[in-house]
């Protein structure tokens, strides 16, 4: 199985699409996006 840092890609996505988010709000967005993988 490939070792890939998907979490880092999620951080990049949030940086790119939600540049105004900072601190806790940014972290919560990352967590919500990661959690959405469960239902795929």
């Amino acid at each position, binding site marked *: 199985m490939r070792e890939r840092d998907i979490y880092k890609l999620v951080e990049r996505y949030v940086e790119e699409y939600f540049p105004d988010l900072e601190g806790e709000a940014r972290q919560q967005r990352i967590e*919500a996006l*990661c959690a959405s*993988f469960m239902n795929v």
Partner: protein
Amino acid sequence: MRMTEDIKKLYNERVERFITTSNLKEPDRVPIMNSTSVWAISYSGYTYADLYENFDLEAEVFVKAHEGFFYDGTRTGGGINHMVKFHNQLGSFQNFISPNAVTLQHSETSSMEADEYDEFIADPFRFIANKIAIRKITAFQDEDEEKVYQLMAELFQKPAEIRAKTTVNEAIKNRLGIPAISGGGNIVNPIDQIFDYVRGFKNTMTDIRRRPEKLLAAVEAMIPYAERNIPKGPLPEFPWITDNHHIAKFLTGELFGKFYWPYYKTSVEGVFNAGTKFLSHFEGSWEQHYDYLQDLPKTSLICILEDDEVEVFKKRFAGQFCIYAGIHSSTLRSGDIEKCKEEAKRIIDIAAPGGGYIYGLRNGLLAPGDADAEVIRAINQFILEYAVY
């Protein structure tokens, strides 16, 4: 399409009927729910696959399954799950269309080994992204990282695109004046997420016995995220917020108290304090959990009873919770209208007096053989005339 004045009047009357009922008062008559789910698709002669990304057809199909059946409310879930097609394209087959293309199926998945609990507990979201997502979504294993990033971005953006195009509930509301009772959203218990998506049925049930501390720590690691999904309000009293409880029926009293109850209680109370109510689908029987439920606020719950005895529940919770129940799917499948009416009458006679009762099938209908349209119509017409206060 906007509502005509006549439809608007019908819609408002129906909303009022649900609000009155949920506050444990007697409305003019017992509200009748549509729980026909994806049975609607075969009723119109289509398959699940026919509706993929065909949003106009989807709306037509679901409107047709509500027309002329005397329904006061719906619980369609907003139509089909359009995301499944994309998930399959990405290599994940957790959900997939049945071989005959008629219904959606779910395969049990376990994406975490028992010895990985500590890693999950330390940072559940990093683990979900770097382990679970890669294992489930084979497209994420591609060597081209940029390609993976673009697919991931599409995966994140697609739900909003689909929501914008989906008009099922809007069409049912605007054309028939029927409200979606669970339109307030969905809340999922963290242990149901672990059960459904992380460890699967068999492994979670094993973990409860062999490594309960690890499982509990994993649930607790998800709690801060799950608590953020509980609305803070203020919210309108209607529509309600919902959840289908998957693992709860397998947890005997003490285990329910340990693994399920803390978040369940927080979410029911949170929703209630925000101004609305929790439409709680008790999968299986919850009789073994009744001692816990008695601590919840009066009128905070609308309880969909699947296998619970209506008489026992009413005796215990009359004056506390609203009951949502109807004839069993096996009776409906028999196609015997008189037998169905008899069962419906028995339930109405028990549950309706004093208010706080919604008539609705205990399970959603899926396959074409689950029900005959004329039988449903005949039962609903009987309830419309019989269940009057």
